[in-house]
């Protein structure tokens, strides 16, 4: 079971890039890395998922080094509306890792 470690909180300002690094030292071969975003009073929302190297979509980029023991979510040019909790999850489609992988997440606060 791949445990994840990520910072409790991060502060930023509008227009800056925010990078959140998640450690997952015992990631397994079949595991994918997925990031979710949660706003107050809402359910978590899927942001991005990757297996290795770099993945980019309209919202964020995900950087995964060759050893896959960590990953970095990059949010370009954040705005106030990006203030949320960000969760890093590691697991595969066979296991029920997801029942245990949600920690406290990283609270990102964007200021004007």
């Amino acid at each position: 079971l791949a445990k994840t470690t990520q910072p409790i909180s991060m502060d930023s300002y509008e227009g800056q890039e925010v990078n959140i690094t998640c450690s997952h030292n015992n990631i397994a071969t079949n595991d994918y890395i997925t990031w979710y975003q949660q706003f107050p009073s809402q359910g978590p929302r899927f942001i991005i998922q990757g297996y290795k190297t770099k993945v980019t979509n309209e919202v964020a980029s995900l950087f995964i080094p060759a050893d896959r023991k960590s990953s970095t979510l990059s949010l370009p040019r954040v705005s106030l509306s990006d203030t949320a909790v960000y969760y890093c999850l590691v697991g595969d489609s066979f296991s029920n890792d997801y029942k245990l992988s949600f920690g406290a997440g990283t609270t990102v606060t964007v200021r004007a």
Partner: protein
Amino acid sequence: GAGVSQSPSNKVTEKGKDVELRCDPISGHTALYWYRQSLGQGLEFLIYFQGNSAPDKSGLPSDRFSAERTGGSVSTLTIQRTQQEDSAVYLCASSLGGEGIGNTIYFGEGSWLTVV
């Protein structure tokens, strides 16, 4: 439907009463999850359904909690004799489940339960 649907969105109940929370997963999703989230806390796993397999109930906090999934689709989470510590948002999620894919979980907006 287009997304995971939960009802009711808000429920206030008196201590000792029973409540039922409903989840309608995304069509075609074989895996269904229930989580609980207390104010300012991370998500706590409750129960997991995968197809016709026996559910993983290892996260249910007490025997007052139960869940069922009828016809492999809609699920109901039941809390009997509610206590104030049961106050939380109950999140349902679903995923495709299956071999060789990153198992993206899609969440509903949650059912906010307040026990008074």
